[in-house]
């Protein structure tokens, strides 16, 4: 969206390469992140003789990112409206345990358990929203309290049993299973290939439609060359990822869930009135209030959505481990916050994209995965990830200063 917008002015400046150059300059923060991810992946691929880019590793990497990525999506919105939520880690842990208990001790089926847990998570998020928006407690403190309470609650419900093992196949499939293959074509999973192809078609069609629409309104658009280049480039990436995943077991349910969450939140934040209001509140709460936007309601919605996504994260994690443990959720919140910041969200509010946070989460997961493959000690892993977080934010601050 931004891409077309900025380039609208570019057209007049002429020249294909000129256009590319100014596109890059004007979107340096966003492109920078993709380039960083590309460089990281390239380095690990070279250092591991291609092992990093293997189907199996990428598939595992994405599955392991899932539960942090959904948290990062919610966290992005919380940070956009200038708050923070520290309770999400143990909230996820606790909600996962609740799911386990419902499944094992109450014998509820999966299709009943999941909605119940999601609703509970949303309610917990709304409590945070109430404390922050209506009572006026700083989000840091309110959610710190929530973190302690959820931690205690998690310990309480797992106290007698210890780790709760889940035997429900359907539930465990969410974190470990893959979409049905239908058939394998040349060693590749057919259903995944079809989904990939559908995604490419959908992408190309929606882009063409949006471009036609713009032309109908007589708006400037990027030159045809750039437009085609962009279509080919993005389609190639989708095709490549699909190819890699299809070479293993295809799309996992975790990846599908993650993609759905990103897709929904991406449209919600960029295309709807609600999304616009969220960013308005983030960039200037007083002006938003005076523009007739209900700041309190937006705060409730954002924290409610955060609660919903923590419950989802808890389900993904519990299902992946096929059990609820006493320490589930430890430090998830900080991983999610780190992913959001690497993804370009700004603590000053009003800035940050859902898609960016997902990339941020994948960057962090890639670092872990790559360093594991290389046998880098855990001590160094933490330090390197810390350095990358700091570098991302430094880059952010620098590019923002330059532009203003």
């Amino acid at each position, binding site marked *: *969206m931004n891409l077309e*917008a*900025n380039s*609208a*002015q570019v057209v007049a400046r002429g020249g294909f390469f000129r256009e590319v150059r100014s596109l890059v300059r004007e979107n340096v923060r966003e492109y920078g992140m993709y380039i960083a991810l590309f460089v990281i992946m390239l380095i690990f691929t070279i250092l591991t003789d291609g092992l990093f880019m293997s189907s199996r590793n990428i598939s595992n990497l994405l599955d392991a990112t899932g539960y942090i990525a959904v948290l990062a999506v919610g966290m992005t919105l919380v940070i956009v409206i200038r708050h923070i939520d520290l309770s999400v880690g143990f909230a996820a842990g606790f909600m996962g345990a609740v799911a386990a208990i419902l499944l094992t001790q109450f014998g509820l089926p999966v299709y009943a358990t999941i909605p119940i847990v999601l609703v509970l998570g949303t309610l917990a998020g709304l409590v945070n929203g109430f404390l922050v928006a209506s009572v006026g407690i700083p989000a840091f403190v309110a959610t710190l309290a929530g973190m302690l309470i959820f931690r205690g609650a998690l310990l309480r419900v797992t106290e007698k049993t210890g780790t709760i093992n889940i035997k429900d196949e359907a539930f465990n499939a969410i974190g470990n299973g893959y979409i049905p293959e239908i058939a394998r074509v040349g060693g590749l999973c057919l259903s995944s290939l079809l989904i990939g192809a559908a995604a490419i078609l959908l992408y190309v069609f929606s882009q063409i439609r949006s471009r036609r*629409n*713009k032309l*109908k*309104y007589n*708006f400037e658009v990027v030159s045809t060359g750039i437009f085609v280049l962009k279509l080919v480039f993005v389609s190639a990436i989708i095709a490549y990822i699909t190819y890699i995943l299809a070479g293993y077991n295809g799309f996992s349910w975790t990846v599908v869930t993650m993609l759905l969450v990103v897709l929904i939140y991406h449209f919600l934040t960029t*295309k*709807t*009135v*609600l999304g*616009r*209001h969220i*960013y*308005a509140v983030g*960039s*200037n709460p*007083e*002006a*938003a*209030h*005076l*523009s*007739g*936007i*209900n700041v309190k309601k937006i705060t409730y919605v954002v924290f409610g959505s955060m609660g919903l996504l923590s419950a989802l994260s808890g389900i993904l994690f519990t299902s992946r481990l096929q059990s609820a443990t006493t320490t589930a959720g430890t430090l998830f919140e900080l991983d999610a916050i780190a992913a959001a910041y690497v993804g370009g969200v700004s603590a000053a509010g*009003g*800035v940050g994209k859902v898609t960016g946070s997902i990339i941020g989460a994948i960057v962090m997961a890639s670092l872990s995965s790559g360093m594991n493959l290389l046998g880098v000690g855990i001590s160094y892993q933490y330090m390197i990830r810390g350095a990358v977080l700091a570098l991302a934010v430094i880059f952010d601050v620098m590019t923002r200063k330059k532009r*203003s």
Partner: protein
Amino acid sequence: MSDYILEMRNISKSFPGVKALTDVSFKVRRGEIHCLVGENGAGKSTLMKVLSGVYPYGTYTGEIVFEGRQQRFQSISDSVKAGIAIIHQELALFPDLSVYENIFAGNEVQRHGLVQWNETIVRAREMLRKVKLDINPSTLVKDLGVGKQQLVEIAKALSKNVKLLILDEPTAALNETESENLLKLLRELKQQGITCILISHKLKEIIAIADQVTVLRDGKTICTLDAAKDEISENVIIRHMVGRELEDIYPKRTVKSFGDRVLEIRNWTAYDPQLGRYVVKETNLYVRKGEIVGIAGLMGSGRTELALSIFGNPKGYKLQGELLVDGVPKTFRHPDDAIRAGIAYVSEDRKRNGLFLIQDIRRNITAANLKAVSGGGWINENEEIRVSNFYKDALNIKTPSVEQIVGNLSGGNQQKVSLAKWLFAQPKLLILDEPTRGIDVGAKYEIYTIMNDLISRGMSILMISSELGEVLGMSDRVYVMAEGRITGELPIEEADQEKIMQYATL
């Protein structure tokens, strides 16, 4: 008779695009009370900021001689060391600390790096005696009224061996008894040899207390009047304050016709629980269709508070009285209610609470009326861009595209975006709070033309302005406010600068 404690010579100070002070000279005799007067924006505060080192040496031209020595203050602490203390309108106290901690904040009584609290309290008592404040020094500042807080500020200044005390509108927030007490105290300090510069809008108290009065206008010294020579009177001061010729910068409307009352308030009172006082008192006012109504008054007279209390009360005042839109009584609980009833408020401080500076023009323009470009919660971005381009052209917002970030625009263009946002909400009544503050003359003229155009389409405008020329040049009727009350209502034919000033300084 050349015993001047302070001489400021040929001071000039520019901000980007504005010349705030031009060649200002200002002399203060030792041991006198010298009043500095002028309209809002005349340069009083800037001059005092130059004097107190807020604007360091080198950012202005001209020289400052204090106590016979040329001074080059690099910061406020330099001027404090030299013996100059300034007490701002917004008090700089720590509400949650005690009185004695406040008096010696930044100037702690210490030995070997440890604060001597007992000695601090003893010395604080002494300072409080000097300002005639009979309270326990351990009282928390937040538990004191504004009047007493002001005395604590003065005590703080005295503790630093101040020779020249500057007070910026000290009585603006005080009631009458408190004001009188303060003036009495200033006279006593004068006896003790402390020189005082007083910035005030209240002419009566100036006449009562001043030894000399210096009038600033448009960043220039107009004259200095001496009480000893019997030069000071209300009329003389007002004449010098407003003396500029009205230039023809206000486009005239040819046709004027007024319809029914679009907005009316009766016995309207607003109490601010945060400040703990009434900000609007017993106000009656109406605006007719096709009318520009001006609200004049000095800063702090309650004009913005009045506007906000009408516009859905975002600050949570306790309201009393009646509000009618098109003759129908209404209660607004949230700005959204007011917007739906057809009222828009273009904020005085567009950067702080008017615009989303980090967002682009189109997102700003549609912010108050997203419904108009969306269906079922989904925004039609193309429609949004079309609408934004329409306003960009209609208001002549100078920018290559509506995708530009608003923070990068000039003040005049930002104001137009702010205006566009509210025009897109299709109001019947537009409340403009200082519509041309901080923008250049050309952009001002454009804003005025837009206002006239809106009126000709049947809209009504309630305009708050501190620029008398603007009020007189644009309004069809003028209300004057002072201390939360409407002190005068003038049809434009009867309004002139002197009359407005009189009502405003009541």
